[in-house]
């Protein structure tokens, strides 16, 4: 995919929502990657002119509605993550593939952490450490997504048109 379009972004986000709605049970619900967040971060870092903080907020709101949590929790966490992701987005071309992966991993952990604080404020109990497992599975999903949709690392000199 050379030039992603807006429609393409929305279709991939819808597919991510479908995976999010999949009836996860048992171990699956502990390990379930944050599909919507990973796809959102991918487009934020690759095509910020198609997908920006407003998109992140809407995606967060969709997450709130589909999980049945307090409206605005995921929206706030995703907005903050999107802001941090975009503030270093211009520097991303200088990063190596490994650095990009660790950057995304840090963003995923940050989202989980923000969400945890918001949930604790809303009066939920503190979960155990396996709450952060989805960040690991999400980064695996990120690698998979990179293969399917294309790398966001600096294009090779010969490839640039």
């Amino acid at each position, binding site marked *: 995919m050379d030039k992603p379009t807006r429609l393409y972004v929305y279709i991939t986000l819808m597919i991510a929502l479908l995976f999010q709605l999949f009836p996860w049970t048992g171990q699956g619900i502990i390990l379930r990657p944050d599909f919507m967040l990973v796809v959102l971060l991918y487009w934020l870092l690759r095509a910020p002119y198609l997908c920006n903080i407003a998109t992140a907020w809407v995606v967060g709101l969709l997450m709130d509605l589909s*999980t049945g949590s307090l409206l605005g929790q995921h929206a706030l966490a995703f907005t903050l993550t999107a*802001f941090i992701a975009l503030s270093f987005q211009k520097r991303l071309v200088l990063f190596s593939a490994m650095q990009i992966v660790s950057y995304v991993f840090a963003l995923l952990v940050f989202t989980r952490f923000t969400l945890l604080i918001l949930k604790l404020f809303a009066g939920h109990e503190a*979960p155990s450490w396996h709450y952060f497992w989805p960040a690991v599975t999400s980064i695996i999903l990120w690698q998979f997504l990179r293969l399917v949709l294309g790398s966001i690392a600096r294009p090779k000199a010969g490839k640039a048109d």
Partner: protein
Amino acid sequence: MLKGVHQKLEPQQTPAFFVRGASPFSRMVFFCALSIILMAVDSQVNYLSKFRQAFIGGLHPLERIANTPSELIRDARKYFSTHNQLVQENYLLKQKAFEDQVKLQRLKALTAENEHLRSLLGGNVPIHPRAILGDISHTGRDPFRNVVIVNRGSRHNINAGQAVVDSNGVIGQVTRVYPFSSEVTLITDKNLSIPIQVERNQLRAIAFGQSGNTLDIPYLPTNVDIKIGDKLVTSGIDGIYPAGLAVATVTKIEQDPASPFAKIISTPTGEVSHHLQLLILELPDQIEADLHPKDQEGADSKETKSNKAERNG
């Protein structure tokens, strides 16, 4: 025109305003404020429940698509279950039905007798709530809450607040109703409490959900008459859960000398993870719910009066 990643490689002299619109920072501040307002409104006022219902109703087709793979696997498993298994299961079920029928005969006689005695005393006859059978479509997607989603919604006359039971005991309560599904909060959820009674000595208390799939009965003195293995049943004084349904069994009693209260931990008898069907009990009518406690009080006072009279006489 170069776009996307390639555009970033070029040195950009002009301000990026016309490329990206408002600055990311101002966008971030705006949407954070919007999220915080939403959170405040959603947690304090009930305005957004209609919006949520409409959205989940619209999401229903997508949810059905997401559910198809697991349903297909389930159906395939059902199809390939062996003849031997079915025969065995059939035999066991027949045996169970026979045993239950014998018990049911006695129950009918007892119920009739009980109703007769109650009518003699002037008390009112307990209501037997009607129930709707529902299937668990999936567990909640929010790991912070103990909920299951049932495939019966407002289209099937489900209302928020209805009690949900399975064959072993109370499961929880309907908390949110969507057009085609509803959300059942389990009794082990921190936000749910249930009025209970110890079966052995009729002691009344309130059980609260606790983490780790257990219930906690707080604020009871250390010398309270509760033992490990005691069965807890619903007391029925809230007008939502009918009286006498099994709730939990006491599994652990901790006595901390520094605390004036005993720490009583019990495990629910109803098992959500073991089967897919559950019963949603109908709420008693509003009038009945209003009148019931008064009548009960009247009956109680009458009873005590007659007891006193007996004692005096």
